[in-house]
């Protein structure tokens, strides 16, 4: 088959002005941290982008105190209308500086510029728009109980976010927290802190009262200090199930509430009557979007036995056209793996898949010499007990299993400790709706995959965590009363 060659179409880096080093953003100012710093790199080139401070327990404490002061003295006294206006300002600033954010996200994360430009940044702005409008309507956000009054905020929120959608995950935490009347201390992931630090500048431009948003950079120890801080009223965490369990344990016996968005092993179920062209695109987007660094990725393909061969053939043909390479190139479909650590994890689990007897196939495409890369990979002949059918790989690796009956599809789809997302591909409406009921998952995509919207509650069941983000349900989790 002929692969059409495209000339490179690189997005310009000129919009991004990086500092050599960044402090913590506390009380509305960047403050130099006294402790150590670490480098954040471009995973596509391994070039050092900037030095970033590692917040110690003392740095976290200062940020929580700034958030508490801002909550008590300023933010809790503002009207909802005024809080909303700040959020509208932030939304507009994100739109105005969208391309700058997109390029910076791609540099720091390794995701294709088309994805940061068309998905991450617009959705982040949309989250601020959506929640801005809630700020003066909180009494309508939860059903009024007897004697219903306007629900109160919780106080200071600690947000801890992953590296796969850095600014978008920030928006998922900051926008509802502020709309509900809380202040926040946010810790971005250690490999992708730069858009959060640029967001701090946006807060300054918006003249958000100092201390309402605080950004503390660092790794696991910084996050643990935030979780352990007695001045935090709620933890909003997106990340791995292992860390989510640690957080749940750390908060046990306290009055600090938590929203935990954790790992997944999403089943994408394809029936023999599915619209195959769309299904193939859905399978590819489901697992190879964002290099598979998606908690709700459709990492398990469950395909009906009668069409398994055809789906496999079409899938491989489609994958051969994916362009893996320079994330800043607008032709790129699959970018860089975010870090060497993650690359090692993916490679390790892929090795296990082979060792356990599944059949490994990849596109064989050329990869850049610098940076962290992994070819889109498909495992066929996978059984339910294989680790690649049970464990989250968080990379561009698809495990293919087969089924014969709808009941078998349900049993296999539900056979993991996770329950975040699932996809169903069939033209038969009654079967789709029956399956949607049966699947143990917080999000079910019928004849589509990986759709997100600020109005649509997102979150998992079982060991994929608890609480929702987005929509009325997500907002309620930042208010006292019935949301948590």
């Amino acid at each position: 088959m002929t692969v059409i060659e495209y000339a490179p179409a690189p997005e310009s880096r000129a919009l991004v002005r990086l500092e050599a080093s960044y402090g913590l953003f506390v009380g509305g100012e960047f403050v130099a941290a006294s402790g150590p710093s670490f480098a954040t790199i471009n995973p596509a080139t391994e070039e050092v982008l900037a030095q970033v401070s590692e917040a110690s327990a003392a740095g976290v404490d200062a940020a929580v105190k700034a958030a508490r002061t801002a909550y008590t003295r300023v933010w809790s006294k503002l009207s909802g209308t005024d809080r909303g206006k700040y959020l509208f300002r932030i939304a507009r600033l994100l739109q105005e500086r969208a391309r700058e954010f997109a390029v910076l996200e791609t540099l720091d994360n390794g995701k294709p510029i088309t994805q940061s430009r068309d998905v991450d940044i617009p959705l982040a702005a949309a989250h601020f728009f959506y929640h801005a409008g809630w700020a003066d309507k909180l009494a309508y956000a939860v059903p009024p109980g007897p004697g219903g009054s306007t629900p109160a905020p919780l106080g200071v929120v600690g947000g801890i976010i992953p590296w796969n959608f850095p600014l978008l995950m920030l928006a998922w935490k900051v926008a509802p927290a502020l709309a509900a009347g809380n202040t926040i201390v946010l810790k971005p992931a250690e490999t992708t802190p730069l858009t959060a630090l640029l967001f701090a500048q946006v807060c300054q431009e918006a003249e958000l009262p100092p201390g309402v948003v605080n950004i503390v950079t660092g790794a696991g120890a910084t996050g643990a200090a935030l979780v352990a801080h007695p001045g935090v009223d709620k933890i909003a965490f997106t990340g791995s199930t292992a860390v989510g369990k640690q957080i749940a344990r750390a908060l046990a016996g306290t009055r600090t509430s938590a929203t935990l968005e954790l790992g997944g092993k999403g089943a994408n179920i394809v029936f023999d009557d599915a619209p195959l062209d769309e299904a193939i695109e859905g399978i590819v987007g489901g697992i190879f979007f964002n290099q598979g660094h998606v908690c709700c990725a459709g990492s398990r393909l469950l395909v009906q036995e009668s069409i398994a061969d055809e789906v496999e053939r079409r899938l491989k043909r489609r994958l051969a056209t994916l362009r893996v390479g320079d994330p800043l190139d607008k032709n790129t479909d699959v970018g860089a793996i975010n870090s060497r650590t993650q690359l090692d994890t993916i490679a390790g689990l892929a090795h296990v898949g082979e060792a356990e007897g599944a059949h490994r196939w990849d596109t064989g495409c050329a990869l850049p010499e610098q940076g962290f890369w992994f070819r889109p990979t498909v495992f066929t002949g996978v059984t339910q007990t294989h680790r690649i059918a049970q464990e989250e790989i968080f990379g561009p690796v698809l495990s293919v299993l087969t089924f014969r009956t709808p009941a078998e599809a349900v049993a296999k789809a539900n056979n993991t400790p996770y329950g975040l997302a699932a996809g169903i591909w069939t033209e038969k409406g009654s079967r789709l709706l029956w399956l949607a009921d049966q699947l143990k998952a917080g999000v079910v995509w019928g004849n589509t995959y990986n759709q997100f919207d600020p109005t649509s509650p997102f979150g998992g069941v079982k060991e994929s965590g608890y609480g929702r983000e987005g929509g009325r349900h997500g907002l309620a989790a930042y208010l006292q009363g019935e949301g948590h």
Partner: protein
Amino acid sequence: MSRIDVRKTYKLYVGGKFPRSESGRTYPVYAAPARSGATPRLLANAAAASRKDAREAVVAARAAQPGWAGATAYNRGQVLYRVAEVMEGRREQFVADVRAAEGVSAARAEALVSAAIDRWVWYAGWSDKFTQVAGGVNPVAGPFFDVSVPEPVGVVAILAPQASSLLGLVSVLAPTIVTGNTAVVLTSATRPLPAVTLAECLATSDVPGGVVNILTGDPAEMAPWLASHRDVGGLDLTGAADAAGVDWGALEASAADTLTRVLRPGGTGAEAVEPDWLPEPGLGRMMRFVDVKTVWHPKGR
């Protein structure tokens, strides 16, 4: 000469049956003393459920859960309303049970039983309304139908309140099962008998066996096994208040390994306080043991 009355053996309620504890153990249950210093009056030798009984109860609750959640909301509402009908028929027994258990006046016991039956009716009516109030259609920015609905978390282990032996019990049990969960209830340690009478109501209405399982005994002994049980999806710690030997923080910590949804007891800080059960409760208890599922589908011609 007065008639010799026929006394009842108080047993567990598991899977729709009334077994003794597999351990063969019982423990004495006394009436609340009318005045301090009075000799306690023995009410019954209640079953002292064991770890194995608790595990059997989880098995029964798990087996019953898909059928209960899969029933129509209208049907669940009818079944639960039927429970209230049967409770009303046993009013006098409940009043006597509550009076003996809680040491309250006859008038107070009447009021508590009335409130408990009314509470059951209130929750029964939520069965086919809760989904609309707690769910909805999401106006996403694209050509998609996008709907969110609450779904039960599965099996919920409940530490029933220690003081309020019937109204408190109904107020934690009814909101849990009305949404499609099944329950394993650890009763008040010292006031378990109204719960056994409630079990008899459940068994003689149309509640499928295993939807509610009631264990009398020492919650401090059984709760840790339920909190860490991999087939338990929710843990209601309300009854940790004033429960001897129960550390709710430790129970919450052991539930963390399975990310079990936990409803903390009332109160502030580490202190657990049993709430006032008389006011109308709101949606909070129903919301705690559901997870919202969101389903997307494209629209097109």
